[in-house]
């Protein structure tokens, strides 16, 4: 006898994103522990008096009741479990949170088993909201997300010949997802040298439990280089520009950028009042 799909299911979820559906509804992308990544319909979510809209905002951990629909399930109830409110008071934390959501969305597929990914994202958002280091949270999350989704980068052995790669003589390839030894690097297009300190940090972040990785103190410059390498890797694997990674950096630079803005030129003045 075929298994009957229950008419109504209840699940916990983290809201990854939403998009408009008609005048009043939304399609909401949820990451759930049991059903992986799913699109559901939130009817009336665009109305100002919607009882669900606030509980289905991205960066919210919520409990939803879903009615089985023909093509997509329909949200009948939603209740926030954790809104990670601290993220909404700090632009750097908020933009990093947005990046974690986009990274998760890009590297996962619908209906796959994403129980581990759910736990990783939940833990990362909790750490982000309680004030842990932004770089620590983002880098350790990226490395563990890649591991859980089958994209684990190789930082120690040559991707081509499996030989151990010395940190001070390594090249890496974002598209190949790891390091290459001195002999093999010329055979792979796109391989570029990688700073030995950056490589040591990446190896440590990948190997150590979170609490031990948290003891590593990084100078801002080195931290920036590590971030750059990871953003390049994530972008290469997701095969698209990751706007949220760009926004993390833009937001950080925002205050200083105003001071650096050139004075209005003649063209701008011409269109100005």
């Amino acid at each position: 006898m075929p298994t009957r799909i229950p008419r109504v299911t209840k699940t916990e979820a983290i809201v990854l994103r939403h998009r408009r559906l008609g005048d009043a509804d939304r399609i909401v992308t949820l990451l759930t522990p049991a059903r992986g990544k799913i699109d559901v319909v939130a009817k009336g979510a665009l109305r100002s008096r919607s009882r669900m809209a606030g509980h289905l905002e991205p960066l919210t951990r919520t409990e939803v009741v879903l009615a089985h629909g023909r093509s997509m399930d329909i949200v009948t109830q939603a209740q926030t479990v954790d809104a990670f409110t601290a993220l909404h008071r700090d632009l750097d934390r908020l933009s990093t949170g947005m990046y974690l959501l986009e990274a998760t969305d890009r590297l996962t597929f619908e209906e796959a088993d994403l129980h581990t990914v759910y736990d990783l994202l939940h833990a990362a958002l909790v750490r982000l909201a309680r004030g842990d280091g932004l770089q620590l949270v983002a880098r350790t999350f990226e490395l563990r997300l890649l591991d859980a989704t089958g994209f684990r980068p190789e930082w120690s052995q040559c991707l081509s010949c499996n030989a151990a790669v010395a940190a001070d003589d390594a090249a890496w390839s974002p598209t190949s997802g790891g390091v290459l030894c001195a002999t093999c690097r010329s055979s792979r297009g796109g391989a570029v040298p990688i700073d030995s300190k950056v490589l040591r940090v990446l190896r440590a972040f990948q190997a150590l439990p979170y609490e031990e990785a948290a003891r590593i103190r990084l100078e801002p410059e080195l931290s920036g280089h590590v971030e750059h390498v990871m953003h390049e890797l994530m972008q290469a694997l997701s095969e698209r520009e990751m706007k949220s990674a760009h926004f993390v950096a833009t937001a950080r630079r925002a205050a200083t950028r105003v001071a650096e803005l050139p004075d209005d030129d003649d063209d701008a003045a011409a269109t100005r009042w």
Partner: protein
Amino acid sequence: MNAFDGPGAESPITRLVEAFHRLPGIGPKSAQRLAYYILRAPDAEAIALAEALIEVKRSVVLCARCQDLTTQSPCRICSDGARDRVTICVVEEPLDVRAIERTGGFHGLYHVLHGVISPADGIGPEDLKIQELLARIRDIDTGVTEVIVATNPNLEGEATAMYLGRLLQPLGIRVTRLARGLPAGADLEYADDVTLGRALEFRQEVG
């Protein structure tokens, strides 16, 4: 020859159906219904619609100051000498200007961003009219002292508001955000944590 059976997309009805289908929120059935309505409508009604479409594309431009949609630049609001010129209300879309104007409670100027920072949709700060806002504020003649950020109270709206705050506060501008709380007629039981938290934080004395 059946009007649908012309050589492919060259059939006038098929072209009309496809034109409607390209509009947001219009599916194939709705597109067919609209096309049939136009076919059955009096000539004057169909011609008025066609002329309105042509006119709106030919005559509507962006206001050079506030970036709102207008038929003359500067727009009516920017040209109005009676408006408070030191306060700018920043909104996401032109329709938001109409919504705030309907309240009758704001007498300053506007700036339309034409979107909101939404990395998930591939929209970053560089895709919005933020440089135009900075240029307005940096112009000493405008004397702007306060910017009210009236983006929507959602994740993207919050990120945009905080980003603008970070850009504008170093310029000595007071940056404020629309209050966030419970909508009229709402039910407290169903309010989300962020909204209820903000409503408590920014509570007001009664009477």
